[in-house]
């Protein structure tokens, strides 16, 4: 007798011995708290990125060969442009669902990085990076910075006015790196800016193959490490301890949640892609090295670097007439390296400062570690203020606060505000801890009082003698 379900399943199991592994996987316990879903949002954005990216790759032409546009978008009619730019205009105007997919791809990139940042803050402020999860933390940071590069390559490939200006800035920052910067940047670009046509094949293969594979590998390692050392959990009840995991099994408990989240993430991204315009390259027009637009900006996740480049005082490291380190290095290269380095080293820095070398499976609430929380808020504020200054020209146009005034406010503010926040936040955390302790004592006292009352009330009921 043949069974249409059992037989194929047995066939596969007998040849893979996968049943045991699958059973273990399906029984994996997920912590029962919404904040653990933030990382999943990033994962599902990545899946949307891959899906939409494959569709776009069918039509995109990574070539700088010059062509003349004659197509449905009349304001560009008769203009000379690269084949790369033309193919993206065609994706936006000529191919079925091209613009929807392209905009969804771009929104997914913006949301991908944003959800990674939100996920990172959750992990940071709850101390989830502590032993034994430091590697998971490092891999996560690598993914974040790889995603910056992936996004940068993505919008640079289009060869519109903004991407060309972004490449020019990237080229300048690359050249500014001491010793290795010049040869490295020139060999990547093939020639002084705007480089050789080969640059496009290099960026293209990196954007559609190498970096996505790298990201996929990093995601796999990240998730494997999470599973190997298991999720952390909050101390939601007395049953949640360092050694006992309380949660929802992957199947059936977590599966509908995650499926619902996949659909929700895809829905939000496709809705944005259909309703809100992003990177209207037909409005920017094609790039030529002598063209530019005021107020050009990178995508939001590189805005902090533009802010740093603008905020950095004019200072080069020189010996006589020889420039050792030119200015773009500080804001464009050193600053992100410092941010990455500080975050990556943080588990070890904290261990050194607190002397806490034990394993932690239970999460802190932010108030439980006042110094960490205060540092985190100050650090994030520091990066955020530098990021915000990247938009100072637009703030000037909108609010009339002059650019130079903002420059001085920010140059002082990026140090003073985080410092003030550090002490303020630490104070708040400690006050919250105190109120927690008072609450604990009160509850204990009430509990004891209740027991006493019970004992008194129960006394007469006891048989005498």
């Amino acid at each position: 007798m043949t069974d249409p379900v059992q037989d194929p399943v047995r066939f596969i199991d007998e040849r893979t011995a996968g049943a045991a592994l699958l059973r273990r996987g399906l029984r994996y316990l997920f912590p029962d708290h919404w904040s653990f879903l933030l990382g999943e949002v990033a994962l599902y954005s990545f899946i949307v990125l891959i899906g939409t990216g494959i569709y776009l790759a069918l039509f995109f032409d990574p070539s700088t060969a010059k062509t003349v546009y004659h197509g449905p978008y009349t304001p560009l009619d008769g203009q000379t442009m690269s084949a790369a730019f033309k193919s993206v205009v065609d994706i936006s105007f000529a191919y079925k669902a091209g613009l929807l997919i392209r905009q969804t791809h771009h929104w997914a990139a913006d949301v991908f990085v944003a959800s990674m940042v939100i996920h990172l803050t959750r992990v940071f402020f709850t101390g989830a990076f502590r032993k034994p999860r430091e590697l998971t933390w490092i891999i996560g940071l690598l993914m974040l910075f790889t995603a910056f590069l992936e996004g940068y390559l993505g919008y640079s490939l289009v060869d519109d006015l903004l991407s060309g200006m972004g490449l020019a800035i990237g080229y300048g920052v690359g050249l500014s790196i001491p010793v290795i910067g010049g040869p490295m940047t020139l060999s990547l670009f093939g020639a002084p800016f705007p480089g050789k046509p080969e640059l496009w094949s290099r960026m293209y293969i990196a954007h559609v193959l190498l970096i996505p594979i790298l990201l996929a590998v990093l995601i796999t390692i990240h998730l494997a490490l999470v599973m190997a050392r298991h999720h952390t959990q909050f101390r939601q009840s007395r049953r949640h301890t360092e050694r006992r995991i309380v949660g929802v099994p992957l199947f059936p408990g977590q599966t509908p949640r995650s499926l619902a989240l996949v659909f929700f993430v895809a829905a939000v991204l496709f809705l944005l892609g259909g309703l809100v315009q992003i990177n209207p390259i037909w409005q920017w027009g094609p790039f030529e090295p002598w063209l530019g637009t005021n107020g050009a900006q990178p995508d939001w996740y590189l805005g902090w670097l533009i802010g740093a480049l603008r905020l950095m005082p004019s200072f080069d490291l020189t010996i006589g007439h020889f420039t050792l380190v030119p200015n773009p290095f500080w804001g464009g290269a050193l600053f992100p390296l410092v941010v990455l380095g500080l975050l990556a080293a943080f588990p070890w820095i904290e261990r050194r400062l607190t002397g806490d070398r034990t394993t932690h499976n239970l999460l802190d609430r932010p108030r439980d570690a006042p110094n960490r929380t205060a540092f985190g808020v100050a650090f994030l504020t520091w990066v955020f203020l530098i990021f915000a200054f990247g938009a100072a020209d637009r703030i000037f146009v909108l609010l009339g606060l002059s650019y130079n005034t903002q420059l001085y406010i920010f140059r002082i503010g990026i140090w003073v505000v985080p410092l003030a926040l550090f002490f303020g936040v630490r104070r708040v955390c400690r006050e919250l801890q105190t109120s927690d302790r008072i609450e604990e004592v009160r509850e204990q006292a009430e509990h004891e009082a209740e027991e006493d009352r019970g004992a008194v009330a129960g006394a007469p009921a006891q048989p005498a003698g």
Partner: protein
Amino acid sequence: MSYRKRLRFMSLRARILAVATVFALGAVAIAQAQPQSGIVRPTTEPSNPSAQLGAQLFAGNCSSCHGISGSGIASPRPGAGGIPGAGPPLQRVGASAPDFYLRTGYMPLASIHDQPAPDRVLFSDNEIRSLVAYVASLGPGPAIPHPAPASGSLSDGLHLFTEHCAGCHQGLARGGFVTGALVPPLQGVTATEIAEAVRIGPYLMPRFSQKQISDSQLNSIIRYVLWTRHPSDRGGWGIGNLGPIPEGLVTWWIALPLLVVACVLLGKRFGR
């Protein structure tokens, strides 16, 4: 907190309030003492534009900076109403420049240290015509241009605008910042004002000659600038046509909150 401490705290607050009040009153008094910056008009103003009315208005409102008969003032010195002025001579500017500066509200300037900015237009149409006629009568100069944007090409306009203008005015003429000046957005300007500005070069803007931008190219540029009021937002909501800044805002203030709310709701166990 003890009663004494609280009392001291209250009195400190009261003191701060008192000092603030004194300062506020002082500011009002200083503001009152400033000369009125309103427009000086002849007591009986004719209803038709005339160079004579223009001359009267000019003497009352412009000569403190631009000198008697538009001869200009080289170094700052107090003019009418004690306002220090340093204005260029207007004897060879023709009708085009005064028409531009007055219709945009760039003139009269409240302070010579201010950048002329699109502002409330303080003169009536009649008065502007009169002033323009008067300034034009001071010497030879270009007349008010009459551009024909309809004869221009949108595609050429986009290209020319990107080449000559977008570096300061932004690709879709949304304005911005350049060292020393605020670059105005151009969605509210008229075809004539654009044609005038290109040939005059107001404030920090360079002046473009016929050699650099021909009249027919200018028509294309004007056609493009007028088009940027309602550019082709094929992708949906244009979010201001400013590029990545509003895109980042949408990411962080629309997409992320929606997704976080979804996480919170999905993280809840219902039916408990």
